[in-house]
Structures are given as C-alpha cells and as structure tokens.
C-alpha cells in the first residue's frame, strides 16, 4: 500500500497508473462490445433460422393441401364411376317387365355399387391422417421442418405447433393438417335453429335451442324457458323467440320444405356417408408454428436465444373444383398474445426457477 502511495506521488508513477486505468477502461469497452455484438449476431441468426424453418414447414404443408385437392379430384372420378355403375343397374331393374319391385331395384343398385370411393378415402385417411393423426404427410411436414431447422443451426429439434388457433393443448403438437371428411348430411339445409332471448335490467341475453326447454305452461303451450337444471343464472326464466335475425326466418322457410324431425333424421342418416376431404374449421385454419432455440458457443457463459416463427397457409378451398386456385404461404409476425397454447406453456415454464431465468434472459416473453 505504501509502495502504491509512493508511486502515485511520483509523476512517472502517475502516468503509469493513468495509462493502466486508461487501457483497462478501453479493454472493458472492447470486451463489452464484442460480447454484445456476438450475442446480437446469434439473435439475428436465430430469428432468420426460425423464419426459414417456418417457411419450409409452410411450403410442405401447402403442397399437402394441393395433394388433398388432387386426391379429391380422383375421389370425384371414382364417385362418378360408381354412380354410372349404380345408374346402369337401376335402369336395367326398371326396364324389367312389370310389376315394379322397388326392393329388387334397391338390391340391384347395392349389388352393382363397385364402391371405388372407399379405397381412395382409406388412402386419404392414412396419408393425411384424417381422424387418426399423425398421417404420413403431416409427418413429412414435421420431418422436413426438423431437417431444415438442423441445417439452419437451431440447437435442438424445435417445438412445433400445428393449427394452434383451433387446436387444444393435446392435439396442437401432433402433426396434423386440420382436415376432415365432408358428409352428405352437410349438403342438406341446416337444421332449424331458433334463438331465444330475455331482457333483464335493460340487458338482453341470448340462448340457443340447446339451452332452453318448454315452460310447461297450459295457458301458453308454446312458451319456452331456460333449462331449469342448467348452470345459467337465468335457469327457469321465460324466454321469447327472436323474430328478427336469420334464426327464426330461416326456420320458417325450412319448415315449409320439410318437418324438422324429417330433416333431423335424414341428416343423422346421411352423416354416415363420407364425401371428399375438406377443412376442419370454417373459416379454415392452417398454420404451422415453431419455437426454436439457438445457443451461442461461448466458453464460460453460453447464451441461449428462443425465437418463435409462424406461417399461415391460405388455400381458399380444398374441393376438386378449387384445383387451380393458388395457395399462399405467409410468414406471420408472431404475437404471443394470440398464441394461447404457447403462452400458457411458457407461463407454466415460468413457475420453474431454472426455466424462468432462461426465459427472462431471452427476448421471447416481451409483451406477456
């Protein structure tokens, strides 16, 4: 200490100390700049890698949707062939000498149906994973995206989320393309729907057909009420039928065509007959999102960067007649607020101290 004091009182020592401090300050500045710069580079690289991986997943997904259209075209051809065969059999049965035997005509039609549709529908089920995910094609989407993530230096296989807007926590991570089979029942007019309402303290509440029941009032046999055993705070309250809006008007129009019970039974019967493959949701939801991770390889203090990327695939329609319609793949700006599944997952991670610290160090939770 005495030596240091002596040195600081000597002009030469003062110069030496000043030089040392000067060098130290600039070295610290250089090191800080280097560290911040390298981290920024990794951050930019991870953002790019996640975007390119999302775009790749979206491209393969879009190709899959076009394949759905093409398979639907094949299905239509098969259905046409089946219809021709059945038609020929019916015509032959009708040409038979009288009396007309309806049962024989139906039997002939059933026997003549080659059901070429079935084979194609089974193929569609297995390829696109309809009703039993993951299918072969959604797995290809996963595999190609995982391979691209690896090529773009994302550290571990990222977490993928499929069609998250209409998915649940359970099925969002399972590769799927949000598809289903259309049924003949969907070609029938809609089941009559009525909407009912009541007004309380100036606020009108609306109820669906499922939420109401007859009020069992002999003076007003048609009076309805909110189901007595429901959890609604208005349970047992009388409701009135809405006269404006589509519900009642449509109801009146349809009731002229056929009684409600006939339509209901027809619908449940035709629900068994599958047609072509269509979107699971209306409006359609086809999104591919991922949460990627990139590590910066520094010796003592590894930095980890999380990034989220998402692409939306807009097809317009998957029917055979949409074959020539373009499919657009759009890179979305990820908004975690509109990402309920991921947000919930990350919030749960936040309760684990180690992961909480990791997430806080990344820029992923901004805005949460």
């Amino acid at each position, binding site marked *: 200490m005495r030596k240091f004091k002596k040195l600081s009182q000597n002009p030469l020592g003062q110069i030496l100390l000043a030089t040392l401090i000067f060098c130290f300050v600039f070295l610290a500045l250089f090191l800080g700049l280097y560290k911040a710069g390298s981290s920024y580079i990794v951050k930019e690289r991870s953002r790019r*890698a996640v*975007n*390119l991986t999302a775009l790749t997943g979206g491209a393969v997904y879009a190709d899959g949707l076009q394949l759905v259209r093409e398979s639907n075209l094949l299905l239509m051809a098969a259905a046409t062939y089946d219809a021709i065969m059945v038609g020929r059999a019916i015509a032959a049965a009708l040409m038979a000498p009288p009396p007309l035997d309806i049962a024989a005509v139906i039997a002939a039609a059933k026997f003549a149906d080659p059901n070429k549709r079935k084979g194609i529908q089974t193929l569609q089920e297995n390829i696109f994973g309809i009703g039993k995910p993951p299918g072969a094609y959604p797995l290809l989407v996963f595999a*190609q995206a995982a391979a691209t993530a690896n090529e773009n230096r994302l550290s571990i296989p990222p977490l993928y989320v499929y069609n998250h807007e209409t998915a649940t926590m359970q099925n969002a991570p399972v590769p799927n393309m949000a598809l289903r089979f259309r049924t003949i029942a969907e070609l029938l007019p809609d089941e009559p729907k009525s909407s009912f309402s009541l007004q309380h303290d100036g606020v009108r509440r609306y109820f669906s057909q499922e939420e109401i029941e007859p009020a069992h009032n002999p003076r007003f046999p048609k009076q309805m009420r909110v189901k007595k055993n429901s959890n609604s705070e208005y349970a047992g309250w009388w409701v009135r039928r809405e006269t404006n809006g589509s519900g009642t008007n449509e109801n009146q129009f349809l009731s002229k065509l056929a009684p409600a019970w006939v339509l209901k039974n027809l619908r449940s019967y035709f629900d068994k007959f599958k047609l072509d493959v269509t979107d699971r949701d209306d409006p359609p939801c086809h999104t591919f999102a991922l949460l990627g991770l990139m590590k910066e390889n520094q010796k003592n203090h590894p930095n980890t960067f999380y990034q989220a990327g998402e692409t939306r695939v807009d097809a317009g329609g998957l029917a055979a007649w949409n074959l020539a319609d373009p499919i657009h793949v759009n890179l979305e700006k990820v908004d975690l607020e509109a990402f309920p599944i991921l947000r919930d997952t990350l919030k749960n991670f936040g309760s684990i101290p180690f992961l909480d610290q990791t997430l806080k160090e990344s820029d992923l939770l901004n805005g949460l």
Partner: protein
Amino acid sequence: MKTKKISKNQKGQGLAEMIISIPVLFLFAAAIIQFSVLFLSFVQFEHACGEGAREYAAGLCSKTSLAPVVFENLGSFKRFFDPKSIQAALQDPKSNAAGALDKLRGGLGVIPFLVNYDGAEWSISARCRPPFLFHIIFPDGILFHTLQQVYRYPK
C-alpha cells in the same frame, strides 16, 4: 528553445501531455466505433442473407440468383462489401436426414403433380471491406460466411 521553456512550465507540461494523449484517445475511440461498424456489417450480412432466402421463398428470385439479392438487401452497408465477392453456392445438406428427404422429394418428383415444393441450401460468403483502422490489420478484408436452407411452394 521555445519548447524547452514550455516544458519547464507547469501549464506547458499539461499541454504537452494532452497533445500526446488526445490522439491516442481519439484512436481508441475510433477503434471502438469501427469495431461496432464491423459487427453491424456482419449483422446486416446475416439479415440480408435471410431476406434473400425469404425473397426466394416468395418466388421473387431463383436458386441461382441469390447473390445479387443479398447485396441489394445490405442497404446502407453496401459500401463495406464488394458485390463481386458475394457468392451464394448451392450445396448438399450436411445431415443425412435432410439428404434422405431431398432424395425422397427427387424420387417422388418423377410422378407429375405430386411434389410441387422445392428448395436449396446455400453457403453464402462475402468479403467485408473494413473501415480504415481494421483495414491496416486485415488488408484483404474479412470473410463473412453463413449457411441457410429454405423451401418454397410452388416450385
């Protein structure tokens, strides 16, 4: 004679120290600024490569014309790069899985209308002309290099 007089004076000594130290101080400050510019150039290079790949994915350019697109996306940092030094070479994927998927795509692509997505992996390199202080250390410039892969629909 005059300098000798100044150096003997207390004020003159301070002035002489300042004359010596100010250029060094400025040199260090300039080095720090130029170091930042160098880092920003690399960040911009990474960004430009990503934008180039996105333009490819959007169908705005072909696989083989990525280098000019990368240069265009360098923005105000263009002056630190030689356009002729930017090279975007197509290469095979590094991992076996990605290679196998490419082979599968190629095989299925023989069947018409079946595979309508395509992509590539690029090894992109560019030579950065650093600002004058770093130019003394790296007279040939600094080579930046990155890899990226993306696929697009339709082909």
